[in-house]
């Protein structure tokens, strides 16, 4: 693929803190290589801002290799940008053309308040996991991995759900700001395995309760989440979650 340099305008959301109102600000950036990642382009812009004595743009990132789920950014109307099954850190500048204006917004959801600029508080996800995204194991020596036979299809489906990196793009894309794709991934990967069995009912009940408490919306199965998910989590997991919830609500003791 041919390498080229480009000049761009980055129209980015600036907001001092969670209380103050924010707004868009446009910055020109020059000589951006097509082989840079999107975050490297923001790094270049930030160095420019620091040289000019301005406040650099705050954004989340960590691994920069598409596995941690820290990067966010809603780029030109798409969470993680236009590439399918991709995170912002792995979005490369060859996705853009010379002279383009790129609009960058933070994830928008009441449950994800803006901390600063493009950084949002996703600790609601941590609290949902704490409410039930665990299994109980006995202490002592680790058991032999092969002592529990697991059907290959189930193991694969569980692994596919466990791919979720908790980035929150599904919430950002959903018209209802629903966290159901995330939650369904977290419930499914345990519900499919024998290790998840002891807490199976309490897990789904408590995690849904926590999700509602955090202020996410109700799912209407539109499919927007699945289309934007960097890990291609299937929307069928949401139906599985619904089944887990229905069974748990009908068969719980109280």
């Amino acid at each position, binding site marked *: 693929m041919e390498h080229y340099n480009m000049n761009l305008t980055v129209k980015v959301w600036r907001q001092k803190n969670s209380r103050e109102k924010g707004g868009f600000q446009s910055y020109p950036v020059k000589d951006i290589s097509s082989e840079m990642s999107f975050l490297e382009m923001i790094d270049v812009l930030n160095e420019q801002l620091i040289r000019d004595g301005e406040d650099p743009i705050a954004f989340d990132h960590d691994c920069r290799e598409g596995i941690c789920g820290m990067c966010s950014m809603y780029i030109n109307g798409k969470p993680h940008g236009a590439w399918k099954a991709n995170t912002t850190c792995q979005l490369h500048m060859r996705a853009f053309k010379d002279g383009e204006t790129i609009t960058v917004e933070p994830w928008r959801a009441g449950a994800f308040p803006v901390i600063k600029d493009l950084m949002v508080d996703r600790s609601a996800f941590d609290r949902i996991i704490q409410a039930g995204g665990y299994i109980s194991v006995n202490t002592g020596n680790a058991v032999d991995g092969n002592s529990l036979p697991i059907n290959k299809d189930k193991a694969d489906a569980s692994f596919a759900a466990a791919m979720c990196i908790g980035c929150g793009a599904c919430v950002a894309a959903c018209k209802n700001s629903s966290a159901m794709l995330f939650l369904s991934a977290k419930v499914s990967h345990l519900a499919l395995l024998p290790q998840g069995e002891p807490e199976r009912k309490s897990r789904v009940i408590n995690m849904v309760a926590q999700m509602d408490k955090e202020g996410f919306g109700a799912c209407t199965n539109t499919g927007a989440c699945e289309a934007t998910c960097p890990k291609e989590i299937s929307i069928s997991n949401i139906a599985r979650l*619904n089944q887990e919830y229905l069974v748990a609500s009908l068969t719980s003791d109280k």
Partner: protein
Amino acid sequence: MTWKQVFTSSVGKKLVMAFTGIFLILFLIVHAGLNACIWANDGGEMFNKGAHFMGANVVPRILEIGLFVGLILHIVQGLMLELDNRKKRSVGYAVAYSDGSKWYSRSMGILGTLILLFLVLHLSDFWFPNRAHQNFVLGEEIDLYAKMKETFSVLWVVIVYVLGCLSLGYHLAHGFQSAFRTVGVHNRKYNLMLVSLGLGFSIVVTLAFAMMPLSFYFGWIN
């Protein structure tokens, strides 16, 4: 988990939407099937017999109460969910996102409201005058076939009915498959089937209902 917890949770509210939605779908099958008797082209004899069975017998009239309860639950819960969901994002996006979802799946609240407005007209056209004539018990009914003929001789009424049917069709195009997902159907073989079954059902139901006012207006039946 108490019942209160179930029905006040987001998933529980969706279960109410789905079960009442499926119940309404079953009603539509009966309603469309019975009304199709107008095409027997016998001056409404068969149709009026069917309508009489539904209106003058205790069992269908008890089921009718269930239908109203289900419908009202569906409407109230649906509108509350829609309003609640809209409050979850106070600052919107400058550039809208629309990948992966159809416009009608994002417009269930609006489509439902259109159906509701249509239902007000529809019930005051047929159901209300008929039950009023019966004094809301099991009395003598009006000639519903003649009533249809008269109602559907007015162009604007026919247009509103066709638009109402279209709203219902799009509501079902998403609602049918969504309801089954909501009650937990996640097996791939059923999912594919439900999408096509849902689309097929929506198209057939829309056409069947829309053809009724059109048939009267254009005099395709006597």
